[in-house]
């Protein structure tokens, strides 16, 4: 039993010795950074344009569904509220991290005392779900 264990351990040491002799290829770091840079450029464009394009698309779609009321002021208020809920919805949907930041600032004292209850991933999901809620409010405003 002891002999078997020793042979196994010896084998593991041998494998690790081989792995330790390996030199890191010098081209890994530059290729990772290049990939990240390209990806970041693409993401940055999507990140900037995503909310704007969705806001425009949703506004056009919802304005087509808009049922006008008899009063002009009421219509203006409704259109303002519609744009507000769509803008909030698209920001929540595409840039939840901004809302997370604001939320954390508001809850600053509480977080200092008790620490965060949700993981950043859970926070993101929460804000994205809220985005759907805001877009639905926009839809309801259209159909009142």
């Amino acid at each position: 039993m002891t002999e078997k264990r020793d042979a196994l351990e010896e084998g593991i040491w041998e494998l690790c010795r081989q792995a330790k002799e390996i030199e890191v290829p010098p081209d890994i770091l530059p290729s990772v950074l290049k990939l990240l840079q390209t990806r970041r450029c693409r993401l940055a464009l999507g990140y900037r344009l995503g909310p704007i394009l969705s806001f425009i698309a949703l506004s056009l779609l919802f304005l087509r569904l808009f049922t006008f009321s008899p009063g002009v002021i009421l219509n203006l208020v409704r259109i303002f509220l519609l744009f507000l809920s769509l803008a909030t919805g698209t920001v929540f949907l595409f840039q939840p991290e901004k809302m997370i930041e604001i939320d954390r600032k508001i809850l600053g004292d509480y977080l200092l005392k008790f620490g965060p209850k949700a993981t950043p991933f859970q926070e993101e999901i929460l804000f994205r779900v809220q985005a759907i809620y805001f877009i639905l409010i926009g839809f309801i405003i259209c159909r009142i």
Partner: protein
Amino acid sequence: MPEENSLVARSKKGDLQAFEQLIKSLQARLYRVAFLLSGNREEAEDLLQDTFLNLYQSLPRFQGRSMVYTYAYRILINLHRRRVRKRKRVTEPLLEDIVASTPSGTEIFAKQEQNERLRVAISKLPPLLQEVIVLRYLEELSYQEIATRLGINEGTVKSRLHNAKRGLRKILTKKNL
């Protein structure tokens, strides 16, 4: 550690220079683990590259409860497992094929064969047991150091190592490797 924290904070904000510094400090250790698990340079390079890309993406979720190395190490292990699983689905395991077809006439080949078998067995261990094998034999840490690194007690380290070796023996005999 404070320097690492500031690099992480800057990387989270998208500072690629900080991220470069951060991965420079991790790459040698992670590359050795990748090589130990995959068994060849090309795959180890691929694995390391994917690990860094994943690390950059998931860094905003990193809360600093462990060292960045531990976090990156877990990404690497998960990626390796996913690759092995994928490969198994497409074809029979590549390493095992190579091992099976390796001529065993000479002592050198026999040794290589033995190493490959052991490598396959290590990569089949559960992540928790793999981790202690890496820390003990590759990084040559003492039980005490492993315990501090993993935030567990020395007894748990010893029992995990014992279980890892028992697991390896089981895999090696079960698969007749």
